[in-house]
Structure formats: structure tokens, C-alpha cells
């Protein structure tokens, strides 16, 4: 972390580290820097020295069940990238840390709480002219005993969301306004695919994820600025966030849970690709 992050007043400021902090800890054996991107060519074309790659499709998902890896697979992943339960993992990536936040969220399902996100992500590191390398590090394998995956604390499923919607609890749709209204079934300019119906889950409010980020450098907005976005909800309220597949909403989940300190925030990773196609699930336009 650094003073600039501290001064932004976050509830859990330790959840963020600066590019300067990462640069100072490149040789720290207690820190593992992890790059998670949407573009599969980015990491191999150059990454922070010593950083390992965790790929959201190959490493975190089980495509046969549309679910995440289990605790055994998570332990294997952590062993492969040389992480112990005491290692501080620092995520960064492209797209304003979308995928970094997604990986952070998946790690949270296994209780690896010693995790941070590098503020500003990959583009900030690059724009600051910091070193990149194509050398892929190899770390000694560790023995990592993973917790069973906790699908309760930070994750929400379809039936829970349905009940949540009926109870009119706080439900935040972080997609674009056009997706939320049903005008589009996809992100702006993206082809129509992913869901049969356009609209949103009944009772949801629309707070696009990108509002949490300073567009000029990709860093997170300050606590006060974020409270302008989310402050109308009580910090102890039960909140569920969703998007299309749960990646953009991981970003919002991180913001609400860590930067604002709301304890009861869950991510609905089934999101609109499940809800928009779901038989018997109501929608609003």
C-alpha cells in the first residue's frame, strides 16, 4: 500500500497495493504477484517480473459443470504457483482489473484472505514505464491444504437470488444501462448473444461497475466517491451483485466488500447468462 491509497479512506485499505508497493516487493518471497487477463496473449508478451499467470478459464473454471475448481484443484493450483496459506497474493490484470477481481473472488471462496489487488492494474504499471519480462518464473511447489470451497459467504445461486428478489433485498446489476433496460442483450457494441431475454432481475438497481474506477488511470475511486454510488444502502444490508457471467460483478463485489467494508455482499456468478435464459425466472425491463 502507499500513502495515496491510505488517504482515500477505504474500509479495508490493505486490500489494495500500489504499483510502487509491488515494485518494492518483487523479490519478497512472501509475496506472489498474479496476473489474470482477458487477453490470453498479454501475460506471455510481457508481465511483471516474477509474476505468475492464473487464467480464468483454464485455472479457475470447471467447464463441464459451469462451476469453479474444487478444493483439491485449488490446492494443486496454489502448489504449482508456489503459494502457501501465508503468502500474500497480489492480483493485477487488464480491463481495469476485471479479471484480477474475478480471480480474487474465486480465491476468497477457498478462504485465501491474504490477497490484494494492484491499484490501476496492468495498464498503470505499463504506463509508468515499469519493467516487464517474458521470462516465466518457476517456483518450488508448495504443500497447500485448501479449505473446502465456501459457496455461502461470497457467492449466490439462482434460487437464493429469486428469493432475494422477491424479498426486495438489495440487488445491484452492474452491467451497462442498455443491458439493464433490455435494449441490449450484451455489452455495448457486442453481438447479440448470451441470453434469450433482455432486461434485469426484478428489483435490481443499475450501477455500472466502471463507475468505481477513475477512467484516466484505472485506479479505484476514493471511499467518499464510492459511497456516492453505493451509500444509499445500509452497510449491513444483504447485497447481491450480478452482471453477465459474474466477472464485472466481482469487481463491484470487491469494491463494496473491501473498499467500503459492507460485510454481506455476494456475487451471483450465474448472472444474466443464467437468469436471462432461465425457465420460470421473472424479469423486468
Amino acid at each position, binding site marked *: 500500500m502507499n500513502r495515496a491509497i491510505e488517504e482515500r479512506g477505504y474500509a479495508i485499505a490493505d486490500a489494495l497495493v500500489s504499483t510502487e508497493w509491488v515494485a518494492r516487493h518483487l523479490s519478497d518471497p512472501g509475496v506472489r504477484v498474479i496476473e489474470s487477463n*482477458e*487477453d*490470453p*496473449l*498479454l501475460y*506471455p*508478451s510481457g508481465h511483471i517480473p516474477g509474476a505468475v499467470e492464473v*487464467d*480464468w*478459464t*483454464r485455472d479457475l473454471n470447471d467447464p463441464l459443470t459451469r462451476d469453479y475448481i474444487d478444493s483439491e484443484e485449488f490446492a494443486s493450483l496454489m502448489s504449482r504457483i508456489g503459494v502457501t496459506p501465508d503468502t500474500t497474493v497480489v492480483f493485477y490484470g*487488464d*480491463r481495469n482489473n476485471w479479471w484480477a477481481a474475478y480471480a480474487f473472488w474465486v480465491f476468497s471462496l477457498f478462504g485465501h484472505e491474504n490477497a490484494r489487488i494492484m491499484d490501476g492494474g*496492468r*495498464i498503470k504499471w*505499463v504506463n509508468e514505464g515499469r519493467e516487464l519480462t517474458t521470462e516465466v518464473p518457476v517456483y518450488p511447489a508448495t504443500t497447500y491444504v485448501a479449505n473446502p470451497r465456501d459457496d455461502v459467504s461470497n457467492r449466490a445461486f439462482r434460487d437464493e437470488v429469486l428469493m432475494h428478489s422477491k424479498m426486495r433485498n438489495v440487488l445491484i446489476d452492474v452491467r451497462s444501462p442498455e443491458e439493464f433496460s433490455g435494449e441490449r442483450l*450484451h*455489452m455495448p*457494441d*457486442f*453481438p447479440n*448473444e*448470451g441470453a434469450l431475454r433482455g432486461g434485469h432481475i426484478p428489483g435490481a438497481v443499475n450501477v455500472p461497475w466502471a463507475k468505481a474506477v477513475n477512467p484516466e488511470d484505472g485506479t479505484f475511486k476514493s471511499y467518499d466517491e464510492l459511497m456516492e454510488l453505493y451509500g444509499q444502502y445500509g452497510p449491513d444490508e444483504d447485497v447481491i451483485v450480478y452482471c*453477465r*457471467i459474474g466477472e464485472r460483478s466481482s469487481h463491484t463485489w470487491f469494491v463494496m466488500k473491501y473498499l467500503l467494508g459492507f460485510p454481506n455482499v455476494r456475487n451471483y456468478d450465474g448472472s444474466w447468462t443464467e437468469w436471462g435464459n432461465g425457465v420460470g425466472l421473472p424479469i423486468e425491463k
Partner: protein
Amino acid sequence: MDRVGQRRWFADREVIPTAVAEIVDAIKNMEDRQERIEALIALANRFREVPPEIATRPFPDTNRVPACESQAYVFAFPSDLGLEFHFAVENPQGVSAKAMAALLQKASCAPLDQILSIPEDLVYDLFGRELSMGKSAGLMEMIRMVKALAKASNRVD
């Protein structure tokens, strides 16, 4: 190659520009993922931005690829040899888009029917099936835009 020794593109699809087919064939036949990624990065490194005599910043929105998060632009320029394709990729993190641009530059001056035969799902032959929807959509739109510009140019002629 298919069972009778024909290049698969030629066997079950229309003929696509030879220079494009050669690159796609070479990359999609790489079984080792790392080898394929290195080939794609090498392809991206061969990308050359649209020369200033054809287009300069700010590039017009009409040339912007609609779904491309890497802010790619496509330009079609009629030369003595045929229709040349040029590209710009404004997002410095757009490595995949640069690779796709370098590939599609190889379609320059190819016959119209071959350009129109370039399949959008060639994206998966190059990058594999693990691409996100956003990434694959953007890369496919680059192909669609090349085909649309080729078609429009032919209409004018």
C-alpha cells in the same frame, strides 16, 4: 489436411486467401499451447499500423471495429494490385487484435470471393476456444469489417 490430403479450408469451405490460410493452418495445427501463443505474439509483432498517407488520427468512427475492446480500426485502400487492408489498434494492451490485424493484412489484394470466404470462427482456430465472449466478439468483428469493406469497395467498382 483432410483424409484425401486437401487443406481443410479448401476441402469443406470456400477458398480463402492463400497467405491467410497458410498462417491459420500453421498455428491451428500447433498442439502445444505455449508454441501457439508464441506464434501469435510473433504474428502480433509483425503488425504495422496504417501509414499516414492512408489515415491519420483521429481515425474516423466509420472505420472503427464495433465490438473491439482494443479500439481497432480497419481501412481499405484501392491500389494498382487490388484492395489493401490497413489497421490501427489504439489500445496498447491489444496484442490479440494486433495479431488478427497482421493476419488480415495478408488478405490484401486477394480476390473478393476469397476475402468474403474468410470465416469468422477462424478466431477459434487461432486462439482456441477459451476466449471470453468479449474478446472473441471483437476479433470476429475485425473479420466482418474487412469483408464488409471489401464488399462495399467491389460495389463501387
